């Protein structure tokens, strides 16, 4: 029932919010919900700090952009293609690097992200380097029986990204509620015990890594087509920083936490536009303080605290 209210509310957003600018923020939030949910699988559920996630996001954006730019394939094909390609790259990468954990894993993901950035910047023949890939468009949606619906306006595209966010949420929900999800948590909490029970930590880390990356890739494709422009700037360190903030301050290891984190930390920087110079200082400060004193995040515990008792009982944190 509660979910019904939430969904209804989300569906009504374009009707209530007439200001194009705020609608734009809702759209970007929804895209980052997909990203955050994916990152949460690796960071929150399996418990490995991957700094490669933004690189998967950017890779997805590039895949879809290149398919559009060079082959004129529409976003409807580009997005799943981006998810698949990113998933495959994550699979190959994970196969090699998920055998190590801890510090070494983190540093390798950083190195991987840097390599991706160098490729995007220097393989000028493919990616146009610094000039990027401009002119990306949102294609019309072909519905059998109705024909082509133009979804490029903000009001309409919002529903497209909302659908993506809801779908991602559903996928993650089913995943974490399944035995796979329970295995995730066990691997995170006590890898030795998990192994002794016959659960391969490597296998579950791979699942989380690949699914998370595929979600990031799909989100990247949506983002690229929405913004209309893809460039190596997408590989900037600032993206992974904000993604981590969304997941960790949102409440890693829960589903609603990162989703809310994505919304809050899309709106907050824009609202703090005037105080731009202080913005990163504030965020970094919050990150340090929260990591020290609020390991469960800020947003989810807050929501939990304010929510009615029955909801709390039904939606315990993982």
């Amino acid at each position: 029932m509660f979910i019904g209210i939430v969904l209804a509310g989300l569906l009504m957003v374009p009707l209530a919010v007439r200001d194009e600018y705020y609608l734009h923020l809702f759209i970007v939030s929804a895209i980052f919900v997909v990203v955050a949910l994916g990152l949460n699988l690796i960071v929150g559920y399996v418990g490995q700090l991957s700094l490669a996630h933004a690189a998967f996001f950017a890779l997805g954006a590039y895949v879809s952009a290149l398919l559009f730019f060079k082959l004129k394939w529409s976003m409807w094909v580009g997005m799943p293609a981006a998810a698949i390609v990113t998933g495959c790259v994550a699979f190959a990468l994970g196969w090699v690097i998920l055998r190590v954990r801890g510090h070494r894993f983190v540093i390798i993901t950083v190195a991987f992200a840097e390599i991706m950035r160098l490729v995007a910047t220097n393989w000028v023949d493919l990616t146009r380097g610094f000039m990027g890939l401009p002119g990306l468009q949102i294609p019309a949606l072909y519905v059998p029986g109705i024909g082509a619906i133009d979804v490029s306006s903000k009001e309409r595209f919002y529903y497209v990204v909302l659908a993506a966010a809801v779908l991602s949420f559903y996928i993650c929900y089913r995943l974490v509620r399944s035995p796979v999800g329970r295995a995730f948590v066990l691997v995170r909490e006590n890898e030795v015990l998990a192994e002794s029970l016959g659960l391969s930590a490597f296998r579950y880390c791979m699942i989380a890594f690949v699914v998370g990356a595929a979600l990031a890739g799909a989100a990247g494709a949506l983002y690229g087509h929405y913004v209309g422009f893809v460039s190596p700037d997408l590989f900037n360190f600032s993206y992974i920083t904000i993604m981590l903030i969304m997941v960790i301050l949102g409440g890693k290891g829960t589903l609603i936490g990162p989703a809310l984190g994505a919304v809050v930390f899309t709106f907050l920087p824009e609202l703090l536009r005037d105080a731009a110079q202080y913005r990163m200082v504030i965020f970094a400060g919050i990150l340090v303080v929260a990591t020290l004193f609020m390991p469960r995040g800020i947003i989810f515990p807050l929501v939990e605290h304010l929510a009615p008792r029955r909801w709390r009982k039904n939606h315990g944190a993982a």
Partner: protein
Amino acid sequence: MKLKFCVVAVAFALAHTAAAQETVKIGVVQPLTGPVAYDGNIYVNTVKMLVDDMNARGGVLGKKIELVVEDGACNPAQSVNAAEKLATRDKVVALLGAFCSTSSAAMMEVARKHKIPHLTGISTAAQLTEQNNPYFFRAVATTPMLGAAFGGELPAAVKGKRFAFLVINDDWGRSMVSSYPKPIERAGGQIVGTEFFQSSELQFLSYITKIKAANPDAIILAANTQHAVALSKQIRELGIAAPLIGEGSWTSDSYLKLAGPAAEGVYGLVEYVYTIRNPINDAFVKMSRDKLKDNPSKFAGAAHNGIHIMVDAIRRARAADPEKIRAALTTTDYNGLVGNIRFNEKNQAYGQDVYLALVKNGVPEVVRTARIAKP
């Protein structure tokens, strides 16, 4: 009853239209934060100063010009956000920005989508005018155009034949390396070495050593302040006495101060420098010294051109209507700070003067002038 309604409606309409058309809104997207914030802020402060002056003289079309400034931070996504806000919320009739070529490239798509004219006086990446975007205008010469204008003069200017390139490894640097050699060679010069450095590098000793081995008479560079300072110092520290010729911020106050003695004898290839002698610049330099307490830099010059060309177009369009302003821009024939500026069919400016400035005792003096040919 009906009459009363009509009166109220008309009054309302009048009030509404009057309020809506009280000012001519021009949007500005510049980096106010981030690595190039210093220069971005100079641009914005200069534009504000000039607009205040224009408004004191009556504004344009009988209305005041209202600047709406947003921070693009030299970041494409942020510049897009900023431009979107200016287009949809502030409903500006024209856009200026966004400094860095990648940000301008992203921003021009927003201009195209919302059909608002977009002018940049700073972004020099050649492909910007190759996007078939009728709403995008570039009021500055690109590196190939500078090369065509000055390349042939360099051997005579430095009295030498052997030239080496030390440029940043991006579009700008690569563009220099692909367009300068021909005019240099036609004038009897010879390219003896080419080195690219990454933006993230802090010391360039290896590249400089390699160039030293080629024994050039002059080194041509593409770099902005941060790299230019390190490059000049390290080149001198490694014992190379050959003159440096640079595109980028080689004549800016900040470079001259930071590089100190290493800046002496440096040649800057610039679209503007404050030592140009003409009445418009004399007035501009005076205003800049009075109000901003500083000599105008290259970016201040770009700001001057940008806002004047835009306002000139608005005046000729006779309406604060984006489409009309766009059309008026294409027929620009503007005489200003650096000479005459017109736009070709790709909305690329040509006809203006560009300068070779030599730093003597910390002051960049113009030693040669050339005119940009129609590309």
